[in-house]
């Protein structure tokens, strides 16, 4: 049974380039109106400064009861707008959506919390804002307090709460909503690792109870573990929908594919000097499981070709790998060899199960006589490694820059004496 049917929904925003200030004032309205009057109804001059922007364009889908749908896409792809339309915060410009069942949407943790009010008062307030009846809140009051771990501060105004407590309380209330359809936006990205684990666990319970969930998150690990279906949005359009693993992989490959290979056919444009000049630079992942994105298991080869213009030069290639935050993870170099004029190729193998998930940057240097840097290319290639886990029920960020699989054994050596 389809619980949500969306037909051709589109949402248009008018961007006013002239009036960037928030709100707009009556003065602006008067001047616009008078311009319109005096230009004899010609609207074009006014429209010049306004631009249409389609946050959603002709989106169609059906969601079955019990589906857990993850929505992925870049920032500005229309994910949040879609959730806003489905939670009725904003109306679609065209099209319609039919929803059968009680909907609760959680676009923010602690919506409507009032800083002056106590934890207790805010539970009732926030619960009501999210659509719970007073009776339902009373029924789950203890469970909420327990989940959030704020017993001792129930009668303290929430403005005195730490940000962690605030978020925990907000999530706890939302977690005890019992709607048939739950719409969640990126709220799991808050709180510490322990709390994230707890809230993901709660989400999993909710999903296993047969309720329908729509879930937007940049935490693809969470999407993959929670959702059985996924929608991929780009530029306001629903580009693809289907099985989560497939959609996530499509999404990731579109994100990273473009920057993994550089080939300079036109020598005059290639980076380099009169002594050496790059021809090509490729990062070649050996994708696992028929996926088309790099995850922590994926072995990769970095292949670099360059032209050497001088005979009998001793050259070697040095490569730095940086984390996106700037720290150097390692620096490796080839052996130095003597080359004559011509094309030189260097290949570096980066094993799978070595780097942790994250974004990385590679820089290259061509070195002469093991000391003189002939040419260096900063940020030659940027790539992302996605998370992959097996047999773990923890979805927080795995710490560290590397994630090697070392031989780490564990076994029972002795039974408890006299047992």
């Amino acid at each position: 049974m389809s619980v949500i049917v969306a037909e051709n929904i589109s949402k248009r925003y008018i961007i006013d380039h002239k009036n960037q200030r928030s709100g707009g004032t009556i003065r602006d309205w008067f001047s616009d109106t008078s311009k319109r009057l005096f230009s004899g109804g010609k609207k074009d001059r006014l429209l010049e400064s306004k631009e249409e922007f389609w946050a959603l364009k002709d989106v169609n889908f059906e969601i079955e009861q019990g589906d857990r749908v993850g929505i992925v896409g870049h920032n500005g792809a229309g994910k949040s707008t879609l959730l806003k339309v489905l939670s009725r915060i904003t109306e679609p410009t065209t099209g319609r959506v039919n929803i059968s069942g009680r909907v609760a949407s959680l676009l923010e943790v602690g919506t409507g919390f009032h800083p002056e009010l106590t934890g207790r008062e805010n539970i009732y307030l926030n619960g009501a804002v999210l659509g719970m009846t007073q009776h339902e809140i009373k029924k789950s009051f203890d469970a909420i307090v327990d989940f959030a771990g704020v017993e001792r501060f129930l009668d303290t105004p929430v403005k005195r709460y730490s940000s962690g407590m605030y978020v925990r309380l907000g999530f706890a209330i939302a977690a005890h909503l019992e709607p048939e359809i739950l719409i969640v936006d990126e709220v799991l990205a808050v709180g510490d690792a322990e709390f994230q684990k707890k809230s993901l666990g709660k989400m999993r319970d909710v999903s296993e109870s047969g309720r329908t969930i729509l879930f937007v998150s940049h935490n693809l690990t969470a999407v993959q573990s929670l959702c059985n279906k996924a929608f991929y949005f780009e530029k306001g359009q629903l580009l693809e929908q289907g099985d989560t693993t497939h959609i996530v992989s499509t999404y990731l490959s579109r994100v990273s594919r473009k920057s993994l290979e550089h080939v300079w056919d036109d020598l005059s444009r290639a980076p380099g000097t009169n002594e050496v000049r790059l021809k090509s630079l490729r990062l070649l992942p050996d994708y696992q499981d028929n996926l088309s994105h790099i995850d922590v298991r994926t072995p990769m080869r970095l292949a670099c070709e360059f032209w050497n213009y001088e005979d009998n030069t001793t050259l070697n290639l040095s490569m730095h790998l940086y984390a996106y935050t700037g720290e150097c993870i390692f620096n490796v170099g080839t052996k130095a060899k003597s080359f004559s004029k011509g094309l030189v190729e260097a290949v570096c193998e980066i094993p799978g199960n070595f780097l942790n998930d994250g974004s990385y940057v590679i820089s290259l240097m061509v070195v002469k006589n093991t000391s003189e840097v002939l040419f260096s290319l900063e940020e030659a290639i940027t790539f992302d490694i996605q998370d992959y886990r097996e047999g773990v029920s923890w979805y927080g960020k795995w710490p560290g820059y590397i994630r090697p699989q070392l031989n780490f054994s564990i076994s029972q050596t002795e039974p408890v004496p006299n047992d």
Partner: protein
Amino acid sequence: MARNITIKAGGSAKEYWLDLWEHRQLLWILSKRDISVRYKQTLLGVAWSVIRPLATMIVMTIAFSVVARLRPDTGVPYPLMVLGGITIWTFFSNTFVQISNSITLNSNLVAKVYFPRLIMPLSAVSVGLVDFLIAFVLYLLISVIGYGYLPSSNIVFLPFFLILTFITAFGFGLFFAAVNVRFRDIGQLIPFLMQVGIYACPIAYSSQMVADTWFYKYHLLNPVVSLVDGFRWCLLGNNAYFDHRSLYSTIIVSAVAMIFSISYFRKKESSFVDHL
């Protein structure tokens, strides 16, 4: 509560009013929130609802009765006339101002959850209502104990005037609430309007004093005049001046304002989120 919802541009009116009814608990909770927040962080708490009208009464009595030598209606003590005027005017202006600001003050809710937006102006009334009740009790105490002036039998009409005051304030406030979202300078205009109102309405003076002037017919057009005069007439009896003709403008203006504002608000509310 489970039912089918259709989301499309311009939803149906019937569904909207049904939704509003289903959210009545939220209305109650938001009202309670406003009241408890108002008295939470103040040193004197509820005392403010007593101090403010009392201080205004004293200042106005000195300024207009002692200094400017304005005369009250025959048989009515001047301070009592002023206090009655202030009590009903404060109710009107508080209600009006709070409704006008209700959407912008709750912008965080507008951006993150759905409920019929009419809940916000409706719940904004609560604080003004509580303040009025306190001020009203204060008025009765001063009237009976201070001046030995028992409320007249006209008091049976009091609910009528209070409801009319509410409708008038709501009709105007709702329009301003919707416009305030789009044009923030409305926020500047409202205190100014209230300041003009306190002199344009017969609060420190009696309507009788302007009854013979050339602008009396315009005075009667002011929809708040009958509210103030009527309120005093209920409490102070037939000694208080009350021209029944002033009621026509109030009823017509408030009915038109109410109908127009609700339809304007309904038309604009779906786009509030885009302007906040």
